[in-house]
C-alpha cells in the first residue's frame, strides 16, 4: 500500500498499541496529532488513558516515561521537536541511558523517544537541528533514523518492542513523502542496513533525508556514467558494519552524507568505522557531506546554504572518483 512517512508511523503506533496494552503515547498536543500528524486519530481508538496530552513539561514527560518504563509500561514519547530534548537531557542522558547499566541489569527500560527533527521550512535555530550525534555519543541508547515510510513503520515497531531505550529520528521533511509499505505487519530489525540503490563505482552512506538527496545525486551521476551505490544504515546504534564494509569492498570509494553539522558528527564516526573495517579496500580518501558548523539560520537563502543536498553529494562523489 501507499502511505506517507507520517501515516506509516501512525500505522506502527496503532499496530503496537493494539498488540500490547502496556504501550501508551505521551507528548505535547498529541491528541490532535500536532505538529506533524503522526498521532492523529489515536485518541479515538485508544482513549485518553493511552494517548496522553502532557503539559509543556519536557523533563516530566521524558522523566515520567522512564518511571513508567521501569515499572511495567511501554511509553512512546513524542518529543514534538527533537530540539526540545535539551529540556529533558538529564532524563535522557543520566537516567534513561544509564539505568540498565548502573543498576547492574536489574531494570528493563522499554522506552521509545520519537524525535521529529531536521532542517527545513525556515524552522530556525530552535526547530531545525539534526541532533542524532548527541545520542550516538551516549552509551545505553539505540538510535534509529529511517528514510522511507516502510522503514519508519518497521523500525518504530521494533523500537517499541525493544527492552531498551530507542530513539527514532523522524526527519520532518520526510513526513509527507509517499512510499510503498507492506500490507502485512512488517518489522525492520535494528542493526540491518539497506542498499537503496546498487552501483559499482562509489558507496554513499546516507541517513534519512540525505538518502533521497543521494539517490537524486546518483541519478544525475549515472548520466555521466558514474554508478553510485546508496546504502542506508537505518540504525546508527547498533550499526551494520558488515553491510557497510561489504559495499566498500564492491566500490572502493566512499562518501558519507548526513544533515547534521560536520564537526564531531555521526558521519565522522561512520567514516572512521569504514576506515577501521575496510582501509585496504579504499582507493581514495573518504569524503563527507554535512552542514557547516553553524546553528540553522532562518532566512530561506541562509537555510538553503547550510542544508546539505544532492549538489553537495554530487560534488563529493566527483571528488572521490577523481
Amino acid at each position: 500500500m501507499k502511505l506517507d512517512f507520517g501515516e506509516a508511523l501512525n500505522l506502527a503506533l496503532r499496530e503496537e498499541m493494539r498488540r500490547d496494552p502496556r504501550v501508551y503515547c505521551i507528548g505535547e498536543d498529541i491528541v490532535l496529532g500536532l505538529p506533524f500528524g503522526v498521532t492523529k486519530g489515536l485518541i479515538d481508538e485508544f482513549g485518553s488513558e493511552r494517548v496522553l496530552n502532557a503539559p509543556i513539561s519536557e523533563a516530566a514527560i521524558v522523566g515520567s516515561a522512564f518511571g513508567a518504563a521501569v515499572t511495567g509500561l511501554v511509553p512512546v514519547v513524542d518529543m514534538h521537536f527533537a530540539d526540545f530534548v535539551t529540556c529533558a537531557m538529564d532524563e535522557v542522558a543520566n537516567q534513561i541511558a544509564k539505568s540498565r547499566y548502573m543498576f547492574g541489569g536489574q531494570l528493563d527500560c522499554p522506552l521509545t523517544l520519537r524525535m521529529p527533527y531536521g532542517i527545513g521550512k525556515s524552522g530556525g535555530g530552535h526547530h531545525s537541528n539534526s541532533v542524532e550525534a548527541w545520542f550516538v555519543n551516549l552509551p545505553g541508547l539505540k538510535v534509529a533514523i529511517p528514510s522511507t515510510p516502510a522503514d519508519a513503520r518497521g523500525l518504530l515497531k521494533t523500537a517499541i518492542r525493544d527492552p531498551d531505550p530507542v530513539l527514532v529520528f523522524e526527519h520532518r521533511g520526510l513526513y509527507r513523502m509517499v512510499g510503498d509499505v507492506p500490507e502485512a505487519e512488517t518489522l525492520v530489525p535494528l542493526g540491518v542496513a539497506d542498499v537503496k540503490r546498487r552501483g559499482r563505482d562509489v558507496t554513499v552512506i546516507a541517513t534519512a533525508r540525505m538518502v533521497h538527496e543521494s539517490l537524486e545525486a546518483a541519478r544525475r551521476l549515472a548520466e555521466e556514467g558514474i554508478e553510485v551505490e546508496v546504502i542506508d544504515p537505518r540504525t546508527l546504534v547498533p550499526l551494520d558494519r558488515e553491510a557497510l564494509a561489504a559495499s566498500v569492498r564492491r566500490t572502493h570509494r566512499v562518501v558519507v552524507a548526513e544533515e547534521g553539522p560536520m564537526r564531531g558528527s555521526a558521519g565522522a564516526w561512520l567514516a572512521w568505522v569504514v576506515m577501521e573495517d575496510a582501509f585496504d579496500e579504499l582507493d581514495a580518501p573518504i569524503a563527507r557531506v554535512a552542514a557547516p558548523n553553524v546553528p540553522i539560520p532562518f532566512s530561506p537563502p541562509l537555510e538553503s546554504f547550510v542544508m546539505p543536498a544532492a549538489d553537495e553529494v554530487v560534488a563529493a562523489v566527483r571528488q572521490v572518483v577523481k
Partner: protein
Amino acid sequence: MSAPGPDALLTMYASMVRVRLFEERVRELFQHGRIPGFLHTSVGQEAVAVGVAAALRPDDYVLSTHRGHGHLIAKGGSLRGLMAELYGKANGVCHGKGGTMHIADASVGYLGANGVLASGCVVAPGVGLSIKRRGSGQVVVTFFGDGAANRGPFHEGINLSALWTLPVVFVCENNRWASSTAHALSTAGGSIAARAVGYGIPGESVDGNDVMAVYETVARAVERARSGKGPSLIEAHTIRWVGHFEGDPQAYRGKEEVAEGRQRDPIARLERWLTEQRLLDAAQAQRVRASVAAEVEDAVAHAETSSLPRGEDALSDLFAYYPWRD
C-alpha cells in the same frame, strides 16, 4: 490510619539503629580507604528514612538521592548487597557498576539513588502512572533534599502528579544545607511545604527527627495516594551531623548546629519514649544494638571477602541484548 503498635515501634527503632550503625561503619571504612568514590551519609537523619518506610507496603516504590543508603536499608534492602556495592565488588547489588550514588535494588522497590538532584521528582509521576494503569494500589515516594527543591524537575514532577492525580508522595529532607549553601540563601519563600499550595495539594511540614511524627504524616499522604486522591508534599526538617560528603571540612557552619542535632538525636529520642512507655529497657536496647552491629559486621566481612569485578565486566549490562560490534 492507626498509630503504630509496640512491635512496629520496636521495628522502627531497630531500623534506625541499623541505618545509623551501617552509616557510621561505612564512614569509618571510607576513612580507612576500603570504599572508593564520594560518600554522602545520612547520620542524624535516620528518622526520615525509617518513618517513611514504615508507612509503606513492601511492594511500594522509593526513588532516592545521593544520600540514599538509609532509604534503602529502611525499605528492607540487603546490607550485604549494599555494602558489597559500596566496596565496588562484583556481587554488589548493581555488580559494582552503580556505587554509593547510583544504587537500585528492584527486589525491594528501590528504583534508584540519584547523582542528580530532583531527578526522581519527574520519574515519580511515571511510576505513579504505571501504578494507576496496572491498578496495583501501590504508591511511590520520591525523596529529595532542600537544595533539590530549587530545580525545575521538582516543579514539573509535582505539577504533573497533581494534574493527573497520581499516587506519589514527595518527601523533602530539609537538612538545612544544599551542599555548603544555607537553606535561607538558596530558597525563596523559606518553606518548601508551602509550595504545595500552588499545586493544590497538601503540603505538610514535620519534625524530621521525630520518627513517629514522620510516620504519621507520611502515612496520611500514603493513604491519600493509595485511595486515588493524588500526591502530597512533605517537608521533614532534620539535621545532618556529618559533612555534605565524607571529608567535608564544613567551614560553612559552626559546631553548634551539629551539637543541636546530637541533642535532638532521633534514635535517643525514640529510645527515651519507648523506655517511658515500658516498651524497651536498657538491656533490650543493648541487644538490638548488638544484633544490628553483628548484621553490619556480617555485611562488612561479606564485602571484604567478595571478589572485585574483572575490568572487562565494564562492557556488560548496557543492553538486554547486543550482539553488535561498535
